[in-house]
């Protein structure tokens, strides 16, 4: 069964460093998403991506964040200069639009 894969599963980084979280969405999907979940809090929308551009983004998704689809398979989230409050579980998801989103297992980012 097709699935969304995320790498790495855990990432520890020092404050101020850049991190790139990687995702491989399901191959025939058109919409890609990043969500985050700070420990003990709700799942928050960061950004959606369609047709090689950002279609929606939340207030959280400031200039420190960027997304890219560098080739036909990967979808990446970059945080330019990490802050302690960026520590969270980051989920990637994809879908064709109307149907359910398929989520990856998440990347746990810890900023120290």
């Amino acid at each position: 069964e097709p699935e969304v894969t995320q790498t790495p599963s855990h990432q520890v980084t020092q404050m101020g460093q850049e991190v790139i979280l990687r995702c491989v969405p399901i191959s025939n999907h058109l919409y890609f998403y990043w969500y985050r979940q700070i420990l003990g809090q709700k799942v928050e929308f960061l950004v959606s991506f369609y047709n090689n551009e950002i279609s929606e983004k939340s207030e959280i998704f400031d200039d420190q964040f960027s997304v890219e689809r560098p080739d036909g398979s990967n979808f990446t989230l970059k945080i330019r200069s990490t802050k302690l409050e960026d520590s969270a579980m980051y989920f990637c998801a994809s879908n064709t639009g109307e149907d359910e989103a398929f989520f990856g297992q998440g990347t746990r980012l810890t900023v120290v």
Partner: protein
Amino acid sequence: AQSVTQLDSHVSVSEGTPVLLRCNYSSSYSPSLFWYVQHPNKGLQLLLKYTSAATLVKGINGFEAEFKKSETSFHLTKPSAHMSDAAEYFCVVSDFMDTGRRALTFGSGTRLQVQP
């Protein structure tokens, strides 16, 4: 704009008793609605979905939900709770935003506890 309200942040039931997790939504268009479950330290797993077909939707592990447009609700139910059902449950709406693009909006989640 779309929004999702999960009316209970915590629900506690006894094993073998019914489960009801409530969800109300607002949407300007015709939404698709989903319930996802998240077990501790795990990812998000789809339980069931409504995408404009039958209003009573059956999902995995004995869960079902009924889409009621007049009440703008999509409550999740299960006749008999099992210990393994203890998890966080998220109601999610997928709809067109004002930009004409689709987006997913999560409810704040309901933590289900199952007592032996």
